[in-house]
């Protein structure tokens, strides 16, 4: 049984802005994003523009798990990438803990992501040449955390996700479910306020997927978690489901 010790380590002064509601961790307002127009006029002339998001508004409070559903190309992943600061939308604002990350520089966005956002990918994206423990500790390296503390933190997180015996294994020596649990542990390494998960069970069988969902549920008890998925079982663990189609929000809370 996976230990349920994935709660936040402590209440933090993690609010980076003061304008939003105190409990709102993620707020998207009027977010529109188009691909093929960000590379300058020449690129715009050459590439057809694809509208990925159209005037999307979305909020997610701390302690809330929001599911994003919709067919492929509906904009689920683009929303997650916008929340993680991996892309800057063409228009609109994306606030994380009250800070509009569209107004930040690349460096500032990277730093905010490191401090406040954890990402779980569908295909795990663990570094194949690093052990499970080193993968979990990865976000702490750039944070300047001393080696012994990194190892201690990563070992604890691996233990929390039920992989205490796999710390020194390479990803190639782990099953899909174990890899995803390592990825979740990595996303929690800096104790972030927001977790985004893109099809977290997409590569897993039903039983393994259930274990991962159990973990995500536990993680989301005191964080804002935004999960994109086609899978009904995954969406069933969320507090609220936002339905997307062609980049627009069709329903929120359905």
């Amino acid at each position, binding site marked *: 049984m996976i230990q349920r010790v994935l709660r936040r380590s402590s209440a933090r002064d993690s609010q980076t802005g003061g304008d939003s509601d105190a409990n709102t961790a993620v707020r998207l307002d009027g977010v529109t994003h188009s691909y093929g127009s960000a590379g300058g006029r020449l690129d715009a002339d050459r590439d057809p523009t694809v509208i990925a998001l159209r005037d999307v508004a979305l909020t997610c409070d701390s302690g809330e798990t929001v599911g994003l559903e919709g067919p492929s190309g509906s904009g689920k992943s683009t929303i997650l990438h916008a929340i993680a600061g991996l892309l800057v939308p063409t228009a609109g604002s994306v606030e994380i803990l009250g800070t509009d990350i569209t107004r930040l520089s690349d460096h500032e966005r990277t730093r905010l992501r490191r401090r406040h956002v954890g990402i779980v990918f569908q295909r795990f994206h663990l570094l194949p*040449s690093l052990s499970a423990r080193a993968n979990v500790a*990865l976000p702490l*390296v750039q944070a300047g955390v001393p080696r012994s503390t990194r190892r201690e933190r990563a070992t604890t997180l691996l233990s929390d996700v039920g992989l205490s015996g796999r710390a020194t294994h*390479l990803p190639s020596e782990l099953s899909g479910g174990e890899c995803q649990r390592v990825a979740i542990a990595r996303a929690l390494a800096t104790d972030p306020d927001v977790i985004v998960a893109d099809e977290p069970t997409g590569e897993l069988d039903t039983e393994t997927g259930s274990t991962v969902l159990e973990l995500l549920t536990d993680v989301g008890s005191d964080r804002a978690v935004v999960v994109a998925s086609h899978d009904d079982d995954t969406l069933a663990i969320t507090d609220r489901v936002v339905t997307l189609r062609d980049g627009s929000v069709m329903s929120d809370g359905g």
Partner: protein
Amino acid sequence: MEADRGGSRRERWRGLTELSLVRLRNRATRTGPRRTIATVTAVALTIALLVVLTGVALALAGGVAEDTDADVRIAPEDGGTFSSIDGVEEPRLGETSQRSATIREQDGVDHASPVLVETGRLETGDGSDHGPVLLVGVVPDGESRTVAGVPTDGLEPGDPHYADGSYDGVPTGDVVLSEPAADRLDAEEGDELGVPGAHLEGESTHPPLTVTSVEGEDGDSESDVPVALVHLSELQTFAGSGDDELADTILVWGEPDAAASAAADAYPNAAVGPVGNGGPSALFDDGLALATGLLALVVGIAICASFVATTAGMNVDHDRTALAVLESVGVPASGRLGIVALSTVTTAMCGALLGAALGFVGIRVVNVVAGSAVATTHPLFVPYAVGVALLATLIAVPYPLAVASRTSVLEEVSR
């Protein structure tokens, strides 16, 4: 977790360095050895070629023959490059024994000795031919001096066979072998070595030489050139260069200024200068050797840089997903590029060290194949190889960095 708030810049870079090295080690040993091996091998082969060519250049410069503790050297003004290219013997000094005696009489001069260098063969007792050795003729004075990297202590002081220019004195038959020469001839102290085709005045056969000592057994020898040190007049007799008392150089020991002054007085038209250490600096005294060394350097840097740029660029291209993951967990561009640069440099340095080792092996192979010491080694070749590889890597590293900087995190994580 208060990560990122208390972390120091030093700790961050230390962590990124550890991360690079651990990834590199695991990739080389567990997850992707072929790519790492390709880079290391490419650099190693280039550096090995550089070391071999530099070894040839050093041998051309007479590296070991110049390895002496003398203070001043007198050499023919025209000696060097062009006569070697044309296949004509280099100019030599004449009347060297007489003039050396004159130099020795000057104040401030401790000793002066002509030095004649010839490539020749010596036979062991069973008459077998073990290949050529570098025969070096000197006039020892009983003091501990070094010529051609070999101490002259084992030779009887003076040059009795010279006999005031009559060359009818009794040959001492002494020969001091360097360790490589002893290995090649399979000889040891007390063994007798024949000189094929050598005759004394009156056509009598030259008596065999006796090995009085083998030098370099203490492991201090820096060269693998086989050297046999003999008395000057005896070598002049073997080589037929006794009529004009010819020698390649005259070495002078003593106070540098006094020695140089005495040398200039004795040979006003010769090149008189301080003696180098017989190492790579000898390259700068020989135009052909310097040209060979520089050519090897330029080609080595160009090829090495090309290999590093290509293989490292391919590695980074293959590693784009990892770079995207690093960005997604909050490692900024400077950190990601630092990891790429460190990985590239570390891989190239491993290749450089392997290449230096291969180069030393290559020099031995070349010498064995050539049947003579056409290339020589020197301990400085190792830092030289590493330095060249580092320079080539610094030239090459912008390419993998450019490949890395063009990585799109969204493209990679969406695959």
